[in-house]
């Protein structure tokens, strides 16, 4: 397989991160990463980006949903039903 450029690596980085590449392509990516600190940094911040988005917005399944929803808010929503 021909040597990868940084541009090649970043173009298909999602496949590398999501582990959807063939073993052959993965080996080529690993070979490039061994010699390219800039792409190692890009890969780390790409993965950190996914972790940040998930950490900031994922629903906390362990915490029970709040039980202090004001009935007034429920009524406002019910009145806003489009067909009313």
């Amino acid at each position, binding site marked *: 397989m021909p040597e990868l450029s940084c*541009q090649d690596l970043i173009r298909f980085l999602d496949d590398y991160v999501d582990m959807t590449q063939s073993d052959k392509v993965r080996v080529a990516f690993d070979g490039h990463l061994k010699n390219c600190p800039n792409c190692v940094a890009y890969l780390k911040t790409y993965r*950190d980006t996914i972790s940040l988005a998930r950490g900031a917005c*994922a*629903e906390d399944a362990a915490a029970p949903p*709040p*039980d202090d929803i004001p009935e007034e*808010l429920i009524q406002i929503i*019910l009145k806003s*039903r489009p067909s009313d």
Partner: protein
Amino acid sequence: MDGLRSGDRDAFETFVRLFAPRATRIARRILQNEADAADAVQDAFISAMSAIRHFRADCQLTTWFHRVATNAALMKLRSKTRKDIRSIDELLPGFFADGHRIGPKPAWALSPDQILERSERCQIVHKKISELPEDSRNVVLLRDIQQVSTAETARQLGVSESVVKTRLHRARQALRSMFEEEFEVA
């Protein structure tokens, strides 16, 4: 579902009482303000009802509503901060003719956990996600945040799996650039 689609009042009330707590939890976390969270919860149900006709029976209602509620909260946040949607193209990395990246920077000094442990930094993450174009935001919400499969994401959004993959990669790169503006080593 049929009752919701046909505008049945009782079905709507059941839906609201069942999902309002989850919508409120999402909105409070993102907006950190009770009044804004209440507005976002209302917006979420208005959006949900206008989109329910397009909801596919083979998709998870909870997953679908989580995306609708998160989007409503993020939109409220963006309107409060008066930020515009960012152009994805302007946030993608640039390359020299030989394939090297233009302006490479080191990895960030803080780990994701360290960034998120401070609420003001967590707010920055929410704001940056809110500045993604809607198509990109929806893919990030489903694939990276809810960890829904590419196939399920494609079904929910009514696009092909290859479109989901392309949008996701572009959105991650754009979001990475926005986070880099905030979290890069000084």
